[in-house]
């Protein structure tokens, strides 16, 4: 169990992490999601001990780590660049963290073999990192960081250096491995799809703060803030005014929502894939003109201009292929969405 309380990190005048609290229970795959400069990598490096916090506390299973140097912390990190030792064989790389802990030769050899089996790299022990493909290097880095049996594994953008197809396969492998090991992972990424598919819980970071923490469906379907709604997936954000406890759009539509509308609500967020085109029976309906279409293979997105000039996106899954779509640019259409699709945001 990792407990972070009141953590604050400062680089000169820049506050990189601002009063952050976080608890990660054993066996959880926690994903830190954020853009560049959000502080997610700094948080990871602070947990590993490379960055000294200005204030706050980091503890694992009740033991305070805050003042320990990196080499005395029971956590291991998998680096974004992998940071494999170029002058050592695969076996020597994996055994590095075991030898520093004074493990016997025989035990080291057993553990190295076990780790190579875990990442399916048997037979590669004598190779140098430069003789491996990117995917193989990634697996060596993983094996090296898992070998010393850390209480917590930190992964800094572990899949970013892999090409797209390999990334998808590796993602599934990594989740399976984490599940089998029952070890807590904290994984940093800027890729929202990666975060949604892998995480037990996601923490969305922005400007050194955790904006929202929750399960992928929580964070995606019930974002707290406009920032989270826009950062995680696409979202139509429309300004609203509140009248008699109901939200009204600039075009005059009074929106039917499933959730209560607070008096200080400012925006309505609707996911494009929940906006339907055509005469559909849904509580919220609005007319507009198609101004743009974009085809993504599995989906088709229409950009529709409403009467007041605001734009709304509607994404349709192409289950029947593109041929069936009768709508083209310039057509007048009706957009519709259910009350449950409405996300009312206060900030």
């Amino acid at each position, binding site marked *: 169990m990792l407990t972070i309380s009141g953590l604050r990190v400062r680089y000169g005048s820049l506050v990189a992490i601002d009063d952050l609290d976080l608890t990660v229970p054993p066996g959880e795959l926690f994903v830190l999601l954020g853009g560049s400069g959000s502080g997610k990598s700094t948080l990871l490096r602070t947990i590993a001990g490379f960055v000294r916090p200005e204030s706050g506390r980091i503890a694992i299973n009740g033991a305070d780590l805050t003042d320990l140097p*990196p080499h005395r912390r029971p956590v291991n990190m998998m680096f974004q660049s992998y940071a*494999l*030792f170029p002058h050592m064989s695969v076996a020597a790389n994996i055994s590095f*963290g075991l030898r*520093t802990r004074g493990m016997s030769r025989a035990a080291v050899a057993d553990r190295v073999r076990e780790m190579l089996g875990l990442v399916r*790299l048997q037979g590669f*022990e004598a190779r140098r990192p430069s003789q491996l493909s990117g*995917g193989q290097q990634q697996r060596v880095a993983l094996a090296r960081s898992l070998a010393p049996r850390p209480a917590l594994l930190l992964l800094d953008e572990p899949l970013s250096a892999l090409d797209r197809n390999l990334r998808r396969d590796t993602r599934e492998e990594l989740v399976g491995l984490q599940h089998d090991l029952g070890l807590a992972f904290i994984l940093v990424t800027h890729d929202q799809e990666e975060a949604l598919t892998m995480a037990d819980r996601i923490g969305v970071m922005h400007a050194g703060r955790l904006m929202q923490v929750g399960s992928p469906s929580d964070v995606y379907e019930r974002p707290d803030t406009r920032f989270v709604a826009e950062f995680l997936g696409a979202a139509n954000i429309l300004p609203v005014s509140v009248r008699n406890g109901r939200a009204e759009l600039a075009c005059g539509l009074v929106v039917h929502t499933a959730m209560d509308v607070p008096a200080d609500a400012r925006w309505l967020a609707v996911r494009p894939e929940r906006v339907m085109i055509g005469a559909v029976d849904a509580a919220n309906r609005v007319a507009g003109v198609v101004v743009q279409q974009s085809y993504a293979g599995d989906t088709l997105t229409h950009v529709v201009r409403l009467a007041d000039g605001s734009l709304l996106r509607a994404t349709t899954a192409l289950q029947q292929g593109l041929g069936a779509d009768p709508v083209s640019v310039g057509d007048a259409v009706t957009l519709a969405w259910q009350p449950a699709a409405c996300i009312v945001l206060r900030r």
Partner: protein
Amino acid sequence: MMGRRLVLAIPWAWLLIFLILPALIVLKIALSYPADSVPPYAPMLPGLHVSTDAFSLILSDPLYRDALLLSLKVAALSTAICLLTGYPMALAIARSSERWRSVLLLLVMLPFWTGFLMRINAWIGLLQDNGWINTIAVALGLPALRLLYTDTAVYIGMVYTYLPFMVLPLYTRLTQLDASLLDAAADLGAPPWRAFLRITLPLSLPGVWAGILLVSIPAAGEYVIPELLGGPQAQLIGRVLWQEFFNNRDWPTASAIACALVMLLLLLPGAIIWATRQAVRAAAITRGAAAEARPAVAPPAR
């Protein structure tokens, strides 16, 4: 294609004209008979007058052997001192902030702004019996030391002169070192000294070798420093060569010494590098042997 060959031809032509050709001329003089003429050796042709007397002499007379051994000893010890002082310097410069780095590098290279002979002469002023070092020592209540014209003075001069040639290649190598490797070593439980021994030091070895060669080769043939700072006992090979050439006007013997020195300086580093490679390979095999003791059962992935 043509242009590329032309570009490559320039350094080759340079090497041919200014290195290989003069070396062959020196070899020719070494194999000639001495003569009371200008220049002081007999022509080889016609009649093929080839003499190995000069080589026989330097191989049989202990004077040359001792001078050569002393030169190698002075070069080796000077190189070792340069390495032991230069490595921490290079490491400190490589790890200092961007702003300080250029200043510190400039300080390392600053002596090059002044002529070499001037700087060695300045050391005479520092080292002599009533020089600056002894004046300060006496003022501090320490005993005055005899420094000038001793072996110590030779070593001081050598280390002073050649230290930048050790620091610069080491610095270049150490700045190329990926800092995340040291993070990874620390993360895997290595305290700083262990990370240094297992990561920084082995990865800086090419810089260490470059520094060793850049210091030891000119140091082995050094003439000016033992001549100006050393005593009469400091008979280094460079000095002996000078005497043969200018005092005795025995060009074949001087040339033979030059040839022997060049051969030695070419063979010795080659042998050292070869031996180290073998040692590193042997160590790597022993280290990997534990993991490879039992062959893998499953086929490799992918």
